[in-house]
């Protein structure tokens, strides 16, 4: 059976909160999430506009059934 000082010694070697890697630390910052989220949502809005709102005849006719089904205002 190991003596108490050995146990304490081992315990000290196991860090309770392992330090974050550079990438992890960056990922946890809200400031690093704002720009990607903003850009992704703008991309999403552009797609929704083309499929659901754009009033060119070709886009309207191609997406007609999809627009009616999703209850977007149509015609």
């Amino acid at each position: 059976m190991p003596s108490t000082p050995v146990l304490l010694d081992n315990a000290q070697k196991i860090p309770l909160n392992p330090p974050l890697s550079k990438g992890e630390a960056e990922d946890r910052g809200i400031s690093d999430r704002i720009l990607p989220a903003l850009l992704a949502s703008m991309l999403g809005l552009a797609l929704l506009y083309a499929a659901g709102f754009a009033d060119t005849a070709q886009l309207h006719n191609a997406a007609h059934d999809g627009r009616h089904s999703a209850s977007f205002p149509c015609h």
Partner: protein
Amino acid sequence: MFNLTTFRELVVAALWTGLLAGLLLTAIQQIQVIPTLLRAEVYEENASAPVVANAENSHEHHEWQPENGWERTFFTAVANISLGVGFSLLIGSVMCLRGRPGNWRMGLLWGLAGYITFFVSPSLGLPPEVPGTTAAKLADRQNWWLITVLDTGFGLSLLAFAKTRTNKFFGAVLLAAPHLISAPQPEVHSSAAPAELAQSFITATVLANAVFWLAIGGLMGQFYKKQS
């Protein structure tokens, strides 16, 4: 600083989610949504037939439209996938800002929020309509739709995440607001298709969009988690 990894994870998850949810929606639409729509179109064409006959000499410009059958289904699928990817990117952006979602179950809740925001709330004022139904000016309806969606989204997030009761109450007021100011209506309500067809279309779209949105939320929760 712009984090390219976070952006790529979001976009890849949204592409897969939108593709699968869009294809699933296209399949579900074939059960009742599309058959009802096609039946309503027959009524619409019959109702406008005398006008077309009288307009034979006019220089009517016919725009391209997909042929009925596979071509039309293909373009509907493309539209559904575009809507699916677009909605997934929005849901993913909110997930990203709130922190990582735990799993697909958490994703289902986001899907439910999207369903209420983008389908249920605007449909309470402007119900899903079959072709051949009179409606108010398109721009007015689009504006009301947009305001209602923004307002519902903001109201729901206040209800769910606000810390104080006052702010939660404000969220509930926002949810109700667009329905107190009623949606733009036509001067005279009329429809070429019979009322039961219109009702059948509403039932079909309510169900199809519920599945669509739950698929978007659940898949996005799952794929976005896997990416990270």
